């Protein structure tokens, strides 16, 4: 049985360690062809892919690092700009406040000046009106008094100079009396 199996396995009952020359030739030729294809196509193609991949990955890393550096630079710039803008805004606000205060002060001052001016004008006017009233009163009261006196007395006191002197004296007495009362 065993002998039969071994014989079957080696195709013909010869020593299994003795090779069949045709088999050797086929294996050699087949291996040579495979080796040729591998050397010529398979290995170069795989190696090229590996090299390209390694390059792509390394290039990608470099690119990413560059992009990150750019991004952080841009961020710094934006922060700087933001700070500048804030400072500017604060400055403008302060200026506006100061300006507003100044304008307010000016307006107050102007208003005060205006009111003073108006008051002074009013005083002047009142004074002049009073003066005018005094003058007109003096004339009118004098005339009225003289007319009344002449009627009462019945005597024409038409001498103007004389009557005026009498009226003046009378008014001076009145004023003195008034001044005395005011005191």
């Amino acid at each position, binding site marked *: 049985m065993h002998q039969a199996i071994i014989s079957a396995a080696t195709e013909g009952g010869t020593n299994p360690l003795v090779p069949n020359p045709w088999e050797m030739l086929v294996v050699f030729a087949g291996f040579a062809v495979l080796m040729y294809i591998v050397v010529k196509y398979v*290995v170069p193609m795989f190696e090229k892919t590996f090299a390209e991949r390694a390059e792509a990955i390394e290039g990608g890393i470099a690119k990413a690092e560059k992009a990150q550096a750019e991004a952080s630079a841009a961020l710094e710039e934006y922060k700087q700009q933001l700070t500048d803008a804030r400072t500017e805004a604060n400055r403008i606000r302060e200026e506006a406040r100061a300006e507003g205060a100044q304008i307010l002060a000016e307006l107050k001052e102007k208003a005060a000046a205006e009111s003073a001016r108006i008051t002074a004008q009013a005083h002047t006017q009142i004074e002049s009106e009073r003066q005018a009233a005094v003058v007109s009163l003096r004339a009118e009261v004098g005339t009225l008094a003289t007319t009344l006196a002449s009627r009462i007395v019945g005597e024409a006191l038409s001498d103007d100079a004389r009557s005026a002197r009498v009226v003046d004296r009378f008014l001076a007495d009145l004023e003195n009396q008034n001044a005395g009362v005011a005191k």
Partner: protein
Amino acid sequence: MLLVILSVVIIATFFVIAARKQQLVPGKLQFAGEAAYSFVRNGIAKDIIGGRDFMKYVPLLFSLFFFILVNNIYGAIPVIQLPTFSHVGGAYVLAAIVYITWIAVGIKKSGLKYFKLATVPSGVPWYILPIVVPIEIISNFLVRPVTHSLRLFATMLAGHLIMMISGAGIEFLVMQENVLLKGASVLVLGGAIAMYMLEALIMVLQAYVFTLLTAIYIEGALHADSH
């Protein structure tokens, strides 16, 4: 013998198609091809030979590994059931190619001094040399190619024989009149399946071992002066 040619066609077609696209982000086929290629390139050539020299030997190791692998796996495929290397001729051829290669590498690296480097170990007392040198000659230059080829051949033939014996045994038992003997064939079948799995493992393993030993021989020839 047709199977040998078929194996060349299978391997070449698969790897050429897998490698052809050369995409940076590989598809499934390309990824499988790259994984297989990297296994030999990095797992065997780079790890064993190392340094800058290993790329030169990647094609040889790669071809050897997949040529032996596919031809071995024939033994596990139903109907074919015949590993090429269960005939000794193919194993002799491959071992001879490797033998010539590593000796050529050694001579190219160190000149004829290589034979002295390979057979006279440094640091051995002079009075032991008469014993050591013949042993080194026999083990390196005579026994090495024989074991290299016969290891592959013997494992494949043994696996093939076990399968055949199991098959014949099952047939023999089923033919018996006795029911118990008939039933015993199931046990043999169970054992045969287990052996089949073991054989499948050995087929892959032997392809790896053959390639690994090739890499070790080449590495030894490259760095003969430091061994």
